């Protein structure tokens, strides 16, 4: 598999901090995969996203994005390939209205206005926010603001999208619409998605999960194997998937197959047990 991002022995320490936020971390991210990066608050997830985009500079090690090393010289090129949706919907809304905000990245590229108008409309259609085009951010909900942020990222047509805890400040409704949107985009076009989260249920659709602890990769596997760790996940500040919690409470009396069962599989198995009786 071709790697779109390759991180090798990268270390980063925040100024005035004694411990490294990222510690000799190495990680390969494949082209067009959906990768989840999980870990508790302060495990280094968001720092990693900033390093990949060259928003902060690593002390040692190197990061290659789409064949180019992240350094002073390539930085603008690399940033044009990566779109990041950040955590706080209010702190990333630059424009005075929805359409202005979506256009911001295009303005930075110096795109002619006619083309911009087309791209802004297209991007807003993708996130289903056309009817809010002229609204100001104050009149939008958190989930709507994040959809605008996603449109702003999509407008520049990046090959990598990083969702940096983009749903953690949203209410359940907002979270659901944003997650559905990402799923849908994933189906529609080729792109690499890196989603950073501490909500294990958001990782179900990704192809691979990387677990961070104290700036190091401690686990790296497909979702099923990660979920199989069961209550061990708590060690990394994560919650066990709900179906796992239910299964382990049932296992003392019911004979269920070993290993992780997703909700559908668990229901199927419980049903089988009950109809045999």
């Amino acid at each position, binding site marked *: 598999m071709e790697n779109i991002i390759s991180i090798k022995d990268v270390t980063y320490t925040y100024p005035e901090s004694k411990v490294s936020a990222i510690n000799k971390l190495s990680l390969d991210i494949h082209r067009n995969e959906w990768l989840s990066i999980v870990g508790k608050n302060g495990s280094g997830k968001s720092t990693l996203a900033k390093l990949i985009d060259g928003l902060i500079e690593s002390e040692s090690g190197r990061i290659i994005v789409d064949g180019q090393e992240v350094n002073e010289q390539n930085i603008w090129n690399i940033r044009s390939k*990566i779109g*990041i949706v*950040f955590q706080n919907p209010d702190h990333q809304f630059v424009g*005075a209205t929805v359409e202005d905000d979506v256009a911001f990245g295009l303005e930075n590229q110096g795109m002619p206005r006619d083309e911009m108008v087309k791209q802004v409309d297209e991007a807003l259609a993708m996130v289903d926010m056309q009817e809010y085009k002229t609204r100001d951010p104050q009149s939008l909900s958190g989930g709507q603001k994040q959809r605008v942020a996603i449109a702003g990222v999509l407008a520049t047509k990046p090959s990598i999208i990083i969702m940096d805890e983009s749903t953690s400040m949203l209410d359940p409704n907002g979270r659901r619409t944003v997650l559905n949107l990402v799923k849908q985009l994933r189906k529609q076009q080729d792109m690499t998605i890196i989603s950073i989260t501490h909500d294990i249920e958001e990782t179900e659709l990704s192809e691979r999960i990387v677990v961070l602890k104290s700036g190091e990769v401690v686990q790296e596997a497909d979702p099923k194997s990660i979920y199989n760790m069961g209550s061990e996940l708590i060690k990394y500040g994560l919650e066990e998937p709900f179906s796992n919690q239910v299964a382990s409470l049932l296992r003392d009396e019911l004979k269920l197959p070993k290993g992780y069962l997703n909700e559908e599989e668990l229901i199927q198995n419980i049903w089988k047990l009950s109809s045999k009786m």
Partner: protein
Amino acid sequence: MNKLILGRYLPGDSIIYRLDPRGKFLITFYFIGIVFLANNVVSYGFLLLFVLFSVYISKINLGFFIKGLRPMLWLILFTVLLQLFFTPSNDPIWHWGIFTLSTDGMRIASYIFIRFVLIIFISTLLTLTTTPIEISDSIESILKPLKVIKFPVTQVALMLSIALRFVPLLIDETTKIMDAQRARGVDFGEGGLMHRIKSFVPILIPLFVSSFSIAYDLAIAMESRGYKDGEGRSKYRVLSWSRRDNIALAVMILITIILLFIRSY
């Protein structure tokens, strides 16, 4: 604070709303200039009629304009009373110590009052019908010639529009922090002056901290979206000058001519 900054723009639609903000901006300042040309009852009456007509076609309730007078009330009252009682006159109606009341004084005082009304109404009309971002766009457009002397017009305009964008957010943040500290037993506006000043420390420090964190987050977000230094950017927002804007300017010239005529009449 809320009412001062936010209560300004009133969403709506009428010919005044649709005028180009640059035109509205210039007309407002131009009008404030020609108010000082008025010198008699007819000329003041003429300008007042014009302003009331503009208010009428803006389709905005007159009440909003009268509210606009309120913050200036003390200044207006002070100036009017000053003119009313301190205009020197050879033919006073009433005289007591340093106070003099005369027909001249009464006339000048009423002119001054009308002048205030004219200026406040016309600028209220601008702010009620023009969004802050349109005003910031107009300022950018008007300052454009300064680029010749290397004045960073586009950067300043972006700064201005971002500042406008974050005012409501910071107001929310301030309210929230004030509530949180009141819940922890802070009483604003109680006790002596020193005590009052001290009671703002628990507001100001958190507000600084969160402003910096917003600024940091925003800078990171802007950079990640490819913002360098304002050069080589294209512009999405465009202002469009149309025929009605030309007509509006023509009306202003006409008004000036009529005014000059009435003045010398």
